[in-house]
Protein backbone atom coordinates (compact mmCIF):
# COMPACT_ATOMS: atom_id res chain seq x y z
CA UNK A 1 0.00 0.00 0.00
CA UNK A 2 2.87 2.32 0.90
CA UNK A 3 6.30 1.80 -0.55
CA UNK A 4 9.22 3.79 0.81
CA UNK A 5 12.10 3.87 -1.65
CA UNK A 6 15.66 4.93 -0.76
CA UNK A 7 14.50 7.69 1.59
CA UNK A 8 17.26 9.99 2.85
CA UNK A 9 17.14 12.86 5.32
CA UNK A 10 19.88 14.89 6.97
CA UNK A 11 19.54 17.26 9.93
CA UNK A 12 22.49 19.54 10.77
CA UNK A 13 24.96 17.35 8.86
CA UNK A 14 23.64 14.22 10.63
CA UNK A 15 22.30 11.54 8.31
CA UNK A 16 19.12 10.45 10.12
CA UNK A 17 17.61 8.41 7.29
CA UNK A 18 20.22 6.85 5.03
CA UNK A 19 18.30 5.08 2.29
CA UNK A 20 15.23 3.58 3.97
CA UNK A 21 13.40 0.97 1.92
CA UNK A 22 10.18 -0.44 3.33
CA UNK A 23 6.78 -1.68 2.23
CA UNK A 24 3.71 -1.20 4.41
CA UNK A 25 1.24 -3.85 3.33
CA UNK A 26 -2.47 -3.26 2.93
CA UNK A 27 -4.71 -4.48 5.77
CA UNK A 28 -1.76 -5.44 7.96
CA UNK A 29 -0.12 -4.01 11.07
CA UNK A 30 3.49 -3.07 10.32
CA UNK A 31 5.54 -2.19 13.37
CA UNK A 32 8.75 -0.21 12.91
CA UNK A 33 11.07 -0.66 15.87
CA UNK A 34 14.37 0.95 16.76
CA UNK A 35 16.18 2.80 19.49
CA UNK A 36 15.15 6.30 20.54
CA UNK A 37 16.76 8.85 18.25
CA UNK A 38 17.17 6.40 15.35
CA UNK A 39 14.71 8.38 13.18
CA UNK A 40 11.46 6.42 13.62
CA UNK A 41 9.43 9.59 14.17
CA UNK A 42 11.27 11.26 11.30
CA UNK A 43 10.27 8.36 9.05
CA UNK A 44 6.60 8.51 10.00
CA UNK A 45 6.58 12.30 9.59
CA UNK A 46 7.83 11.83 6.04
CA UNK A 47 4.97 9.43 5.30
CA UNK A 48 2.35 11.92 6.54
CA UNK A 49 4.05 14.85 4.79
CA UNK A 50 5.22 16.78 7.85
CA UNK A 51 8.80 16.51 6.58
CA UNK A 52 10.20 16.54 3.06
CA UNK A 53 13.04 14.12 2.24
CA UNK A 54 16.40 15.13 0.82
CA UNK A 55 15.94 12.33 -1.70
CA UNK A 56 13.91 9.18 -2.20
CA UNK A 57 10.22 8.52 -2.80
CA UNK A 58 7.15 7.46 -0.86
CA UNK A 59 4.68 5.73 -3.15
CA UNK A 60 1.02 5.45 -2.17
CA UNK A 61 -1.04 3.60 -4.78
CA UNK A 62 1.36 4.60 -7.57
CA UNK A 63 1.36 8.23 -6.44
CA UNK A 64 4.60 9.78 -5.23
CA UNK A 65 3.66 11.57 -2.00
CA UNK A 66 6.95 13.48 -1.94
CA UNK A 67 6.25 15.14 -5.31
CA UNK A 68 2.58 16.05 -4.89
CA UNK A 69 1.10 19.54 -4.92
CA UNK A 70 -0.27 20.75 -1.59
CA UNK A 71 -3.90 20.67 -2.72
CA UNK A 72 -3.65 17.09 -3.98
CA UNK A 73 -1.75 16.02 -0.90
CA UNK A 74 -4.47 17.46 1.36
CA UNK A 75 -6.98 15.23 -0.43
CA UNK A 76 -4.72 12.22 0.17
CA UNK A 77 -4.42 13.16 3.85
CA UNK A 78 -8.16 12.57 4.27
CA UNK A 79 -7.39 8.89 3.67
CA UNK A 80 -4.85 8.92 6.51
CA UNK A 81 -5.25 9.03 10.28
CA UNK A 82 -2.52 9.60 12.82
CA UNK A 83 -2.22 9.05 16.55
CA UNK A 84 0.51 11.24 17.99
CA UNK A 85 2.78 10.31 20.89
CA UNK A 86 1.03 12.74 23.28
CA UNK A 87 -2.31 12.32 21.45
CA UNK A 88 -2.08 16.01 20.34
CA UNK A 89 -5.67 16.75 21.34
CA UNK A 90 -6.71 20.38 20.95
CA UNK A 91 -6.63 21.91 24.46
CA UNK A 92 -9.37 24.41 23.74
CA UNK A 93 -11.90 21.83 22.53
CA UNK A 94 -13.99 19.19 24.28
CA UNK A 95 -13.47 15.51 23.55
CA UNK A 96 -16.48 15.52 21.19
CA UNK A 97 -15.17 18.59 19.33
CA UNK A 98 -11.73 16.98 19.05
CA UNK A 99 -13.03 13.72 17.63
CA UNK A 100 -15.56 15.44 15.39
CA UNK A 101 -13.06 18.02 14.10
CA UNK A 102 -12.11 16.22 10.84
CA UNK A 103 -15.79 15.58 10.08
CA UNK A 104 -16.65 19.24 10.67
CA UNK A 105 -13.80 20.38 8.42
CA UNK A 106 -14.22 17.94 5.56
CA UNK A 107 -17.87 16.85 5.41
CA UNK A 108 -21.29 18.49 5.17
CA UNK A 109 -22.66 16.47 8.10
CA UNK A 110 -25.00 18.26 10.50
CA UNK A 111 -23.96 18.66 14.15
CA UNK A 112 -26.32 15.90 15.30
CA UNK A 113 -24.88 13.43 12.79
CA UNK A 114 -21.33 14.41 13.74
CA UNK A 115 -22.13 13.86 17.41
CA UNK A 116 -23.64 10.45 16.61
CA UNK A 117 -20.50 9.39 14.71
CA UNK A 118 -18.29 10.77 17.49
CA UNK A 119 -20.15 8.73 20.14
CA UNK A 120 -19.91 5.63 17.96
CA UNK A 121 -16.13 6.04 17.53
CA UNK A 122 -15.64 6.78 21.21
CA UNK A 123 -17.59 3.62 22.07
CA UNK A 124 -15.37 1.69 19.67
CA UNK A 125 -12.29 2.76 21.65
CA UNK A 126 -14.01 1.91 24.93
CA UNK A 127 -15.00 5.36 26.11
CA UNK A 128 -18.51 6.31 27.18
CA UNK A 129 -19.94 9.61 28.40
CA UNK A 130 -16.73 11.60 27.98
CA UNK A 131 -17.95 13.79 25.11
CA UNK A 132 -18.13 17.00 27.14
CA UNK A 133 -14.87 16.50 29.05
CA UNK A 134 -11.80 18.63 28.26
CA UNK A 135 -8.47 16.96 27.33
CA UNK A 136 -6.92 18.28 30.56
CA UNK A 137 -9.46 16.17 32.53
CA UNK A 138 -8.37 12.91 30.86
CA UNK A 139 -5.74 10.38 31.96
CA UNK A 140 -2.87 9.47 29.61
CA UNK A 141 -4.60 6.28 28.50
CA UNK A 142 -7.89 8.08 27.86
CA UNK A 143 -6.12 10.72 25.80
CA UNK A 144 -4.60 7.99 23.60
CA UNK A 145 -8.04 6.45 23.15
CA UNK A 146 -9.59 9.80 22.22
CA UNK A 147 -6.65 10.38 19.86
CA UNK A 148 -7.32 7.00 18.24
CA UNK A 149 -11.04 7.80 17.95
CA UNK A 150 -10.11 11.04 16.18
CA UNK A 151 -7.64 9.21 13.94
CA UNK A 152 -10.31 6.73 12.74
CA UNK A 153 -13.31 9.05 12.65
CA UNK A 154 -13.00 9.65 8.88
CA UNK A 155 -12.69 5.88 8.34
CA UNK A 156 -9.16 6.26 6.90
CA UNK A 157 -7.45 3.59 4.84
CA UNK A 158 -4.21 3.87 6.78
CA UNK A 159 -3.52 4.90 10.37
CA UNK A 160 -0.06 5.83 11.65
CA UNK A 161 0.83 5.47 15.32
CA UNK A 162 3.72 7.37 16.88
CA UNK A 163 4.80 5.57 20.07
CA UNK A 164 1.25 4.67 21.17
CA UNK A 165 2.26 3.30 24.59
CA UNK A 166 4.89 5.83 25.65
CA UNK A 167 4.15 7.16 29.13
CA UNK A 168 1.55 4.50 29.94
CA UNK A 169 1.71 1.88 32.67
CA UNK A 170 2.03 -1.78 31.55
CA UNK A 171 -1.65 -2.54 32.05
CA UNK A 172 -2.74 0.48 30.05
CA UNK A 173 -0.11 -0.30 27.41
CA UNK A 174 -1.58 -3.78 27.01
CA UNK A 175 -5.04 -2.26 26.83
CA UNK A 176 -3.94 0.11 24.06
CA UNK A 177 -2.37 -2.86 22.25
CA UNK A 178 -5.65 -4.76 22.45
CA UNK A 179 -7.49 -1.69 21.20
CA UNK A 180 -5.14 -1.40 18.21
CA UNK A 181 -5.73 -5.05 17.36
CA UNK A 182 -9.51 -4.85 17.79
CA UNK A 183 -9.96 -1.68 15.75
CA UNK A 184 -7.68 -2.94 12.99
CA UNK A 185 -9.62 -6.20 12.74
CA UNK A 186 -12.98 -4.43 12.83
CA UNK A 187 -12.08 -1.74 10.29
CA UNK A 188 -9.68 -3.80 8.15
CA UNK A 189 -7.44 -0.73 8.02
CA UNK A 190 -3.71 -0.62 7.34
CA UNK A 191 -1.81 0.30 10.49
CA UNK A 192 1.82 1.47 10.72
CA UNK A 193 3.13 1.68 14.27
CA UNK A 194 6.48 3.00 15.44
CA UNK A 195 7.54 1.96 18.90
CA UNK A 196 10.36 0.60 21.00
CA UNK A 197 7.88 -1.32 23.17
CA UNK A 198 8.78 -4.95 22.41
CA UNK A 199 5.82 -6.40 24.34
CA UNK A 200 3.43 -4.32 22.24
CA UNK A 201 5.30 -5.24 19.08
CA UNK A 202 4.95 -8.98 19.69
CA UNK A 203 1.28 -8.52 20.54
CA UNK A 204 0.13 -6.57 17.48
CA UNK A 205 2.65 -6.95 14.64
CA UNK A 206 1.92 -8.76 11.39
CA UNK A 207 5.29 -7.52 10.22
CA UNK A 208 8.22 -5.99 12.09
CA UNK A 209 10.87 -3.75 10.52
CA UNK A 210 13.91 -2.63 12.47
CA UNK A 211 15.39 0.82 11.81
CA UNK A 212 19.05 1.13 12.77
CA UNK A 213 21.60 3.76 11.74
CA UNK A 214 19.23 5.23 9.18
CA UNK A 215 18.34 1.98 7.40
CA UNK A 216 15.90 -0.91 7.73
CA UNK A 217 18.32 -3.65 8.73
CA UNK A 218 15.80 -6.48 9.15
CA UNK A 219 12.14 -7.18 8.55
CA UNK A 220 9.82 -10.13 8.92
CA UNK A 221 7.05 -11.66 10.98
CA UNK A 222 7.29 -11.87 14.77
CA UNK A 223 8.60 -15.44 14.56
CA UNK A 224 11.10 -14.57 11.82
CA UNK A 225 12.45 -11.64 13.82
CA UNK A 226 12.65 -13.73 17.00
CA UNK A 227 14.68 -16.27 15.06
CA UNK A 228 16.92 -13.63 13.47
CA UNK A 229 20.64 -14.17 13.80
CA UNK A 230 21.38 -10.48 13.25
CA UNK A 231 23.18 -9.49 16.48
CA UNK A 232 21.72 -5.96 16.43
CA UNK A 233 18.18 -7.30 16.13
CA UNK A 234 18.80 -9.90 18.83
CA UNK A 235 20.27 -7.35 21.23
CA UNK A 236 17.35 -4.96 20.72
CA UNK A 237 14.61 -7.58 21.01
CA UNK A 238 16.23 -9.08 24.10
CA UNK A 239 16.78 -5.64 25.63
CA UNK A 240 20.46 -6.14 26.45
CA UNK A 241 22.96 -3.32 27.04
CA UNK A 242 25.81 -5.55 25.86
CA UNK A 243 26.17 -6.03 22.13
CA UNK A 244 26.87 -4.23 18.88
CA UNK A 245 24.42 -1.38 19.62
CA UNK A 246 26.44 1.33 21.33
CA UNK A 247 24.92 2.84 24.49
CA UNK A 248 25.71 6.55 24.87
Amino acid at each position, binding site marked *: MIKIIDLKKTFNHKQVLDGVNLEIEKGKITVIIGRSGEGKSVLI*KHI*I*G*LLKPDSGRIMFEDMDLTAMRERDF*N*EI*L*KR*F*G*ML*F*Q*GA*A*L*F*DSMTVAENVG*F*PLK*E*HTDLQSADILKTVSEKLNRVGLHGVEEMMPSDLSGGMKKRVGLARAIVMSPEIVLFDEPTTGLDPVMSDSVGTLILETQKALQTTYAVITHDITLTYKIADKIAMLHEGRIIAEGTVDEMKASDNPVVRQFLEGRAEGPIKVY
Partner: protein
Amino acid sequence: MLKKNLEQLGRNVGGFVTTAGRITMLLGWTCVYAFVPPVKFKNIFKQMEFVGVQSLFVVILTGMFTGMVLALQGYNALKRFGAESLVGPTVALSMARELGPVLTGLMVTGRAGSAMATELGTMRVTEQIDALFTMGVNPVKYLVSPRVIAGICMFPLLTVITDFVGVVGGYLVGVKLLGINQGVYIGRTIDFVQINDIFTGLTKSLMFGLITTLVACYYGFYTTGGAEGVGRAATSSVVLSSVLILVSDYLMSSMMA
Protein backbone atom coordinates in the same frame (compact mmCIF):
# COMPACT_ATOMS: atom_id res chain seq x y z
CA MET B 1 39.21 37.49 18.68
CA LEU B 2 38.36 39.51 15.56
CA LYS B 3 37.44 36.32 13.73
CA LYS B 4 35.10 35.28 16.53
CA ASN B 5 33.43 38.67 16.57
CA LEU B 6 32.99 38.58 12.80
CA GLU B 7 31.54 35.07 13.00
CA GLN B 8 29.11 36.21 15.69
CA LEU B 9 28.16 39.25 13.60
CA GLY B 10 27.60 36.98 10.61
CA ARG B 11 25.40 34.68 12.66
CA ASN B 12 23.35 37.62 13.97
CA VAL B 13 22.91 39.10 10.50
CA GLY B 14 22.02 35.65 9.14
CA GLY B 15 19.50 35.15 11.94
CA PHE B 16 17.94 38.55 11.28
CA VAL B 17 17.64 37.93 7.55
CA THR B 18 16.16 34.48 8.17
CA THR B 19 13.58 35.87 10.62
CA ALA B 20 12.65 38.72 8.28
CA GLY B 21 12.32 36.30 5.37
CA ARG B 22 10.18 33.84 7.29
CA ILE B 23 7.90 36.59 8.63
CA THR B 24 7.46 37.89 5.08
CA MET B 25 6.65 34.38 3.85
CA LEU B 26 4.17 33.91 6.67
CA LEU B 27 2.56 37.25 5.79
CA GLY B 28 2.25 36.14 2.18
CA TRP B 29 0.60 32.84 3.05
CA THR B 30 -1.61 34.56 5.63
CA CYS B 31 -2.92 36.94 2.95
CA VAL B 32 -3.44 34.12 0.47
CA TYR B 33 -5.31 31.87 2.93
CA ALA B 34 -7.37 34.78 4.27
CA PHE B 35 -9.17 34.86 0.92
CA VAL B 36 -9.21 31.16 0.06
CA PRO B 37 -12.69 29.77 0.82
CA PRO B 38 -14.10 28.65 3.14
CA VAL B 39 -13.39 31.73 5.26
CA LYS B 40 -13.22 30.79 8.95
CA PHE B 41 -15.64 33.43 10.27
CA LYS B 42 -16.13 31.66 13.60
CA ASN B 43 -12.38 31.64 14.23
CA ILE B 44 -12.11 35.29 13.18
CA PHE B 45 -14.91 36.39 15.55
CA LYS B 46 -13.39 34.36 18.37
CA GLN B 47 -10.06 36.10 17.87
CA MET B 48 -11.75 39.51 17.56
CA GLU B 49 -13.35 38.89 20.93
CA PHE B 50 -9.98 37.88 22.37
CA VAL B 51 -7.96 40.75 20.88
CA GLY B 52 -10.67 43.40 21.13
CA VAL B 53 -13.26 42.82 23.83
CA GLN B 54 -10.86 41.27 26.32
CA SER B 55 -8.40 44.16 25.87
CA LEU B 56 -11.02 46.82 26.58
CA PHE B 57 -10.27 47.19 30.27
CA VAL B 58 -6.54 47.64 29.79
CA VAL B 59 -6.87 50.19 26.96
CA ILE B 60 -9.53 52.18 28.84
CA LEU B 61 -7.29 52.32 31.89
CA THR B 62 -4.27 53.30 29.80
CA GLY B 63 -6.17 55.90 27.79
CA MET B 64 -7.79 57.48 30.83
CA PHE B 65 -4.58 57.96 32.82
CA THR B 66 -2.57 59.03 29.77
CA GLY B 67 -5.14 61.73 28.98
CA MET B 68 -5.18 62.82 32.60
CA VAL B 69 -1.41 63.11 32.91
CA LEU B 70 -1.16 64.89 29.54
CA ALA B 71 -3.66 67.48 30.75
CA LEU B 72 -1.80 67.91 34.02
CA GLN B 73 1.64 68.31 32.44
CA GLY B 74 0.29 70.33 29.54
CA TYR B 75 -1.40 72.73 31.93
CA ASN B 76 1.82 73.23 33.92
CA ALA B 77 3.80 73.96 30.77
CA LEU B 78 1.23 76.07 28.90
CA LYS B 79 0.35 78.14 31.98
CA ARG B 80 3.81 79.73 31.76
CA PHE B 81 2.84 81.24 28.42
CA GLY B 82 -0.73 82.00 29.43
CA ALA B 83 -1.96 79.39 26.96
CA GLU B 84 -3.99 77.16 29.29
CA SER B 85 -6.77 77.13 26.72
CA LEU B 86 -4.56 74.92 24.51
CA VAL B 87 -4.58 72.04 27.01
CA GLY B 88 -7.61 70.47 25.30
CA PRO B 89 -6.11 70.46 21.78
CA THR B 90 -2.77 69.28 23.16
CA VAL B 91 -4.38 66.27 24.80
CA ALA B 92 -6.63 65.47 21.83
CA LEU B 93 -3.93 65.83 19.17
CA SER B 94 -1.40 63.82 21.18
CA MET B 95 -3.90 61.06 21.75
CA ALA B 96 -5.25 60.95 18.20
CA ARG B 97 -1.96 61.17 16.31
CA GLU B 98 0.51 59.36 18.56
CA LEU B 99 -0.33 58.12 22.01
CA GLY B 100 -3.67 56.49 21.22
CA PRO B 101 -2.38 54.11 18.56
CA VAL B 102 1.08 53.59 20.09
CA LEU B 103 -0.11 52.90 23.63
CA THR B 104 -2.92 50.69 22.38
CA GLY B 105 -0.40 48.82 20.27
CA LEU B 106 2.04 48.34 23.14
CA MET B 107 -0.62 47.37 25.68
CA VAL B 108 -2.37 44.88 23.39
CA THR B 109 0.99 43.45 22.37
CA GLY B 110 1.73 42.80 26.03
CA ARG B 111 -1.66 41.24 26.67
CA ALA B 112 -2.84 39.55 23.47
CA GLY B 113 0.41 39.22 21.50
CA SER B 114 2.20 37.32 24.24
CA ALA B 115 -0.86 35.11 24.79
CA MET B 116 -1.05 34.32 21.07
CA ALA B 117 2.63 33.39 20.90
CA THR B 118 2.24 31.22 24.00
CA GLU B 119 -0.89 29.49 22.71
CA LEU B 120 0.54 28.73 19.28
CA GLY B 121 3.91 27.80 20.79
CA THR B 122 2.23 25.31 23.11
CA MET B 123 0.26 23.92 20.17
CA ARG B 124 3.52 23.52 18.25
CA VAL B 125 5.47 21.71 20.98
CA THR B 126 2.53 19.42 21.82
CA GLU B 127 2.15 18.54 18.11
CA GLN B 128 -1.33 20.07 17.84
CA ILE B 129 -0.24 22.08 14.79
CA ASP B 130 1.15 18.91 13.22
CA ALA B 131 -2.16 17.20 14.02
CA LEU B 132 -4.04 19.93 12.14
CA PHE B 133 -1.82 19.37 9.13
CA THR B 134 -2.30 15.59 9.19
CA MET B 135 -6.06 16.13 9.20
CA GLY B 136 -5.75 18.04 5.94
CA VAL B 137 -6.37 21.41 7.61
CA ASN B 138 -3.89 24.14 6.70
CA PRO B 139 -2.52 25.49 10.01
CA VAL B 140 -1.82 28.97 8.58
CA LYS B 141 -5.39 29.28 7.35
CA TYR B 142 -6.87 27.88 10.56
CA LEU B 143 -4.63 29.57 13.15
CA VAL B 144 -2.73 32.52 11.68
CA SER B 145 -5.08 34.21 9.19
CA PRO B 146 -7.98 34.64 11.69
CA ARG B 147 -5.62 36.17 14.26
CA VAL B 148 -4.08 38.63 11.81
CA ILE B 149 -7.50 39.63 10.43
CA ALA B 150 -8.76 40.11 14.00
CA GLY B 151 -5.73 42.27 14.84
CA ILE B 152 -6.17 44.47 11.77
CA CYS B 153 -9.89 44.90 12.52
CA MET B 154 -9.73 45.42 16.28
CA PHE B 155 -6.68 47.66 16.74
CA PRO B 156 -8.34 50.70 15.08
CA LEU B 157 -11.49 50.18 17.17
CA LEU B 158 -9.45 49.93 20.36
CA THR B 159 -7.52 53.03 19.31
CA VAL B 160 -10.76 55.00 18.87
CA ILE B 161 -11.74 53.97 22.41
CA THR B 162 -8.30 54.89 23.79
CA ASP B 163 -8.46 58.27 22.04
CA PHE B 164 -11.95 58.98 23.35
CA VAL B 165 -11.22 57.91 26.91
CA GLY B 166 -7.95 59.88 26.85
CA VAL B 167 -9.80 63.04 25.78
CA VAL B 168 -12.37 62.45 28.53
CA GLY B 169 -9.54 61.98 31.06
CA GLY B 170 -7.92 65.22 29.88
CA TYR B 171 -11.25 67.02 30.15
CA LEU B 172 -11.82 65.79 33.71
CA VAL B 173 -8.39 66.99 34.87
CA GLY B 174 -8.35 70.18 32.78
CA VAL B 175 -11.89 71.38 33.45
CA LYS B 176 -12.99 69.74 36.69
CA LEU B 177 -9.67 69.68 38.54
CA LEU B 178 -7.62 72.58 37.15
CA GLY B 179 -10.56 74.89 36.44
CA ILE B 180 -10.13 75.60 32.72
CA ASN B 181 -13.33 77.00 31.25
CA GLN B 182 -15.42 74.17 29.84
CA GLY B 183 -16.52 76.06 26.73
CA VAL B 184 -12.98 77.17 25.92
CA TYR B 185 -11.61 73.66 26.48
CA ILE B 186 -14.13 71.96 24.18
CA GLY B 187 -14.21 74.79 21.63
CA ARG B 188 -10.45 74.94 21.24
CA THR B 189 -10.29 71.15 20.95
CA ILE B 190 -12.85 71.14 18.14
CA ASP B 191 -11.05 74.05 16.41
CA PHE B 192 -7.64 72.39 16.38
CA VAL B 193 -8.35 68.70 15.87
CA GLN B 194 -9.13 67.72 12.29
CA ILE B 195 -10.54 64.47 11.00
CA ASN B 196 -7.21 63.89 9.26
CA ASP B 197 -5.49 63.68 12.68
CA ILE B 198 -7.80 60.86 13.71
CA PHE B 199 -7.29 59.00 10.41
CA THR B 200 -3.51 59.32 10.81
CA GLY B 201 -3.75 57.51 14.14
CA LEU B 202 -6.12 54.89 12.77
CA THR B 203 -3.84 54.17 9.81
CA LYS B 204 -1.00 53.59 12.25
CA SER B 205 -3.15 51.30 14.37
CA LEU B 206 -3.93 49.15 11.33
CA MET B 207 -0.20 48.62 10.86
CA PHE B 208 0.32 47.96 14.59
CA GLY B 209 -2.46 45.36 14.51
CA LEU B 210 -0.72 43.60 11.64
CA ILE B 211 2.70 43.80 13.32
CA THR B 212 1.51 42.51 16.70
CA THR B 213 -0.49 39.54 15.44
CA LEU B 214 1.91 38.55 12.68
CA VAL B 215 4.98 38.64 14.94
CA ALA B 216 3.14 36.76 17.71
CA CYS B 217 1.96 34.10 15.26
CA TYR B 218 5.42 33.83 13.74
CA TYR B 219 7.15 33.18 17.06
CA GLY B 220 4.39 30.84 18.23
CA PHE B 221 4.20 28.96 14.96
CA TYR B 222 7.94 28.29 14.77
CA THR B 223 8.52 27.54 18.45
CA THR B 224 11.09 24.86 19.25
CA GLY B 225 12.50 23.60 22.52
CA GLY B 226 9.58 22.64 24.74
CA ALA B 227 8.35 24.76 27.64
CA GLU B 228 11.48 26.93 27.60
CA GLY B 229 10.95 27.57 23.90
CA VAL B 230 7.36 28.65 24.52
CA GLY B 231 8.51 31.19 27.12
CA ARG B 232 11.19 32.43 24.74
CA ALA B 233 8.63 32.78 21.95
CA ALA B 234 6.35 34.92 24.12
CA THR B 235 9.21 37.18 25.22
CA SER B 236 10.67 37.55 21.71
CA SER B 237 7.25 38.28 20.30
CA VAL B 238 6.60 41.14 22.74
CA VAL B 239 10.09 42.60 22.33
CA LEU B 240 10.10 42.53 18.51
CA SER B 241 6.49 43.76 18.22
CA SER B 242 7.16 46.66 20.60
CA VAL B 243 10.32 47.69 18.75
CA LEU B 244 8.61 47.43 15.36
CA ILE B 245 5.64 49.46 16.62
CA LEU B 246 7.92 52.29 17.79
CA VAL B 247 10.09 52.25 14.67
CA SER B 248 7.15 52.06 12.26
CA ASP B 249 5.39 54.82 14.24
CA TYR B 250 8.29 57.17 13.55
CA LEU B 251 8.49 56.17 9.89
CA MET B 252 4.75 56.56 9.35
CA SER B 253 4.70 59.88 11.24
CA SER B 254 7.48 61.24 9.05
CA MET B 255 5.75 60.03 5.88
CA MET B 256 2.36 61.43 6.89
CA ALA B 257 3.69 64.74 8.21
